[in-house]
């Protein structure tokens, strides 16, 4: 680099502008690809955007901390977005109320399956204890999952990553699984996606239909609350 370019780079790498801008650009590019693919779940925009960013950051030797100083402004919006989920929930409330029993039963069964099977399989294949505990809240939305991981002895930042991967897996695989099960009710499909793969699944469900999205949002909120309550108790008994 010429001295002048180096100077510009030094300035930019110290300001949050760059991290924020590349996050938005990477996402726009990923979303464009997703659209071009005909909204193929395999071309998941989170997956592609993360891949672009990791490549970019490692090839410019930029640390994650430096990047996050800018990207945190996007990350922060997760809070208000979670609150905003109350609105589709309200719109769909009539349908939710008529399905109270299936919703409660599905929630409890799904929530337990998500946490316990993740620990059991990881243990079976020889993962270390911190890794097992970081996996336990993997189906819960990021901010809640990180809090749970911290409480039960996992690694919060690893949990954040596992949560994202889980979300992508659910968003990518759900359609094929439900089609194979001949399951067509958007309420059930949405709810199961929300339990298994939180906000990323919910984002995918909203792209399919408003009803599926609202049920996914409901499932995400309920599963977050239930897992936060249940998992610390459950692990206390298991120990």
């Amino acid at each position, binding site marked *: 680099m010429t001295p002048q370019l180096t100077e510009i780079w030094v300035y930019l790498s110290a300001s949050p502008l760059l991290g924020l801008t590349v996050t938005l650009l990477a996402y726009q590019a990923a979303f464009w690809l997703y659209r071009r693919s005909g909204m193929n779940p395999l071309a998941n925009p989170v997956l592609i955007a993360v891949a672009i960013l990791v490549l970019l950051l*490692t090839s410019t030797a930029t640390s994650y901390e430096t990047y996050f100083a800018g990207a945190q402004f996007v990350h922060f919006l997760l809070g208000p977005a979670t*609150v905003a989920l109350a609105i589709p929930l309200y719109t769909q409330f009539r349908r939710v109320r008529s*399905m109270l029993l299936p919703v409660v039963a599905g929630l409890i069964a*799904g929530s337990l399956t998500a946490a316990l099977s993740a620990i059991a399989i990881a243990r079976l*294949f020889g993962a270390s204890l911190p*890794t097992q505990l970081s996996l336990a809240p993997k189906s819960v939305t990021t901010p*809640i999952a990180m809090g749970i991981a911290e409480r039960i002895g996992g690694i919060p930042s690893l949990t954040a990553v596992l949560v994202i*991967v889980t979300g992508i897996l659910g968003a990518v695989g759900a359609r094929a699984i439900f089609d194979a099960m001949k399951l067509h*009710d958007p309420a059930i499909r949405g709810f199961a996606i929300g339990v298994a*793969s939180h906000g990323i699944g919910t984002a995918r469900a909203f792209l399919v239909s408003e009803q599926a999205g609202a049920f996914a949002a409901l499932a995400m909120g309920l599963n977050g609350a239930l897992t936060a309550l249940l998992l610390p108790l459950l692990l206390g008994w298991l120990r």
Partner: protein
Amino acid sequence: MLSALTQLLVFQLAGEVVARGLNLPVPGPVLGMLFLFVALALRGGPGHELQTTSQNLLQHLSLLFVPAGTGIMVHLHRVADEWLPLLLSLLISTVATLVVTALVMKLCMRRQAAPGEAP
């Protein structure tokens, strides 16, 4: 948009304060979602502004996960060491959760819909 965003933040703040004040294990934003839901039920639905702002925010919900997801670069080491149990655990557990949740709901709905059965 400004008033809608302010409302969302106020509800998040209220959720955060109550969650921490009462030492609840539920995160603030989730409690904020609950509060907003109750408020919507009380005043009979969201106004036009809140509706459109929320729709815009939720339309790009995926974007909001990108910064946390990029954190994988910090854990490449652990992921490389334990990739097999991690991958199998995530894959099998996610599929199992989808299938179990959907099946349980379907069974319950069939029971609920069956004539003569008390719900």
